């Protein structure tokens, strides 16, 4: 048995890891930022000491000044003094003053008046005459302050200790921390929610179909447990549905034998009218048993798909109803090849035509198609369906109030199974009350070449 060194893959562990990673990221960025921007406190202290140095040198006599300046050594900063008539001093005197927003007004005040000062770097030609070890420090920064006798003290920093001003520094620091936290949380939620989203997609894919296979168990532990529980539930539902289907199939099957006998006995009835009525009753009974069975068993899944002529299918339905004296009409192309399950679609369309005839007195079929889909519209001239019931009518065994009193009510499975068949073809069905009265059923089916 091998010892598992890998930590368990759980949501808790994932959250801990991401939070840890985020904290490390924030810390890292803070350190990096401090490296670049430098601490404000240190800057203030440096400026304070530089200020002292300037006052001291200003107060000292010219003879002592170079020595004093050389004695100053503030961390990596050095100071140099240049006499009023030196080249460096003359150049500095005509140099540009520092940026207006360099907030240094607190420093370098002598007798209440601010001394002129200049910032520059080793890139600047101003640095030409200044003594410092160019070989060792390729880059240096300078702060020059003019003394009262027009001589200059130059501070030479070989590393950048001063940086941004405090408010800006805080803003940048906060921005960095905020950005890193945002990035960490976006990544964390993405990776955390990805398996959950996949699970949701899987659930959507299998939809309400209890016969669909189990969902693959992937992702963190808790999610795998949830998927396993779902799969178990689905298996139970499947078993339940299967048991009921088997029972219904058995009932429907057993019903056929007595119905066959009734039909055969009917042949011995001399009265044609009575015999015809008996046969109609047997047909109704059989249709009810069949519709219930096909609803529970989803028969259409057993039918093979084949390319067939959809226009011919609608025409045949129209002719068949017409021969029985029913007002059904067809408008559309003479031929339209479609890849699907012809028997199931024929039954679905007949259910819709039956409904139109039952509740709308006539059925007008219209077939339209584009490059990507075909649309069958079945319109009637009835009272339509109240808007609140437009979705309800698809529910199994649902029947509108008005149909209760009718002998031809059916079982309330026609629309349900029609929609199941149409959706199994990747299409959909929509109901709409026509402005001119009556109901329009639109069946949309995608054309797949």
């Amino acid at each position, binding site marked *: 048995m091998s010892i598992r060194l890998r930590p368990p893959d759980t949501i808790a562990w994932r959250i801990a890891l991401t939070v840890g990673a985020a904290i490390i990221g924030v810390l890292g960025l803070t350190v990096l930022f401090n490296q670049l921007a430098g601490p404000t406190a240190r800057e203030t202290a440096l400026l304070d000491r530089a200020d002292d140095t300037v006052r001291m040198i200003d107060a000292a006599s010219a003879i002592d000044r170079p020595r004093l300046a050389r004695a100053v050594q503030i961390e990596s900063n050095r100071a140099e003094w240049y006499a009023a008539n030196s080249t460096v001093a003359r150049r500095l005197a005509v140099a540009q003053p520092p940026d207006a927003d360099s907030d240094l007004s607190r420093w370098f005040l002598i007798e209440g008046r601010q001394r002129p000062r200049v910032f520059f770097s080793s890139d600047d030609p101003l640095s030409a005459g200044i003594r410092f070890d160019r070989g060792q420090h390729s880059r240096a920064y300078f702060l020059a302050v003019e003394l009262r006798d027009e001589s200059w003290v130059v501070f030479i920093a070989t590393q950048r200790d001063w940086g941004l001003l405090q408010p800006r520094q805080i803003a940048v620091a906060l921005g960095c921390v905020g950005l890193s936290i945002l990035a960490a949380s976006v990544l964390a939620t993405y990776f955390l929610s990805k398996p959950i989203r996949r699970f949701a997609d899987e659930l959507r894919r299998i939809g309400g179909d209890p016969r669909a296979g189990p969902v693959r168990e992937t992702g963190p532990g808790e999610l795998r447990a949830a998927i396993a529980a779902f799969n178990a539930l689905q298996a139970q539902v499947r078993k339940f549905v299967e048991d009921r289907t088997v029972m219904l199939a058995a009932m429907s099957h057993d019903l056929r034998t007595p119905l066959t006998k009734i039909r*055969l006995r009917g042949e011995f009835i001399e009265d044609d009218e009575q015999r015809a009525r008996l046969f109609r009753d047997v047909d109704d009974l059989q249709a009810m048993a069949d519709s219930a069975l096909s609803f529970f068993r989803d028969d259409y899944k057993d039918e093979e798909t084949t390319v067939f*002529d959809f226009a011919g299918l609608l025409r045949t339905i129209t002719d068949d109803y017409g021969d029985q004296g029913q007002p059904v009409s067809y408008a559309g192309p003479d031929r339209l090849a479609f890849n699907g399950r012809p028997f199931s679609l024929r039954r679905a369309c007949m259910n819709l035509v039956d409904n139109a005839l039952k509740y709308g007195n006539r059925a007008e079929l219209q077939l339209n198609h584009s490059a990507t889909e075909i649309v069958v519209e079945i319109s009637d001239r009835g009272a339509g369906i109240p808007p609140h019931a437009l979705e309800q009518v698809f529910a199994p065994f649902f029947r509108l109030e008005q149909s209760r009193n009718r002998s031809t009510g059916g079982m309330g499975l026609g629309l349900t199974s029609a929609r199941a068949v149409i959706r199994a073809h990747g299409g959909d069905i929509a109901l709409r009350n026509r402005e001119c009265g009556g109901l329009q059923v639109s069946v949309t089916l995608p054309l797949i070449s």
Partner: protein
Amino acid sequence: MPHVLVVDDEEDIRSLLTGFFRKHGHEVSIATDGHSLFAALDVQHVDIVILDVMLPGEDGFSLCRRIRATSKVPVIMLTAVADHVDRVVGLEMGADDYLVKPFDARELLARVKAVLRRTTQTGAAVVGTHTRPVLSFGGWRLDIARRELRSADNTLIILSSSEFDLLLVFAEHAQRVLTRDQLLDLTRGSSHEVYDRSIDVQVGRLRRKLDADAETPSVIRTVRGGGYMFTPAVRRG
């Protein structure tokens, strides 16, 4: 007088079918299972077997295959399962036709007549191996057992029951002039609805489904003096 052998385990159905077929001028024998079926086939000449799928012991599919192995007596299967798979299995086993319970006795009689007509016509050609009867004409394929019409590009053309029966009659009498009376007579019974409908309407519907492009002359030609002729040559298989 055609001799029908009814194989069903239901006493009532056997006696009812016996009565019905006798009433319509058929000689009837009965069997209750595979054993009595083959016993009956051994001792007498039978023109057609009506075989229930659900039988105790060996089922109808298996019996049908065994019948096919030794005899070319036509078989019509009866099943209580309205299943496409079942239907195809039955036809693959060599059944000539297939009816789902509860069936209309007249429909069964019509199918018996149609199968007998077909097998007596083609009996000489089909010896030994049983091939599923398919008629081909001008790119079209008419699968008699499946009751399917397919076009040259294998598109299934949906036909009503009576349209199919009429087309079958035409295909079986290709390139011969048939009067309306003859057509009525040949299709009579094969679908009891034909009585009420004029042959002309049916022909019109068939033409619409068969003549996709109006350029070519119609498959079914109107013959002056009252009749129709199916023009293409029909090939079996």
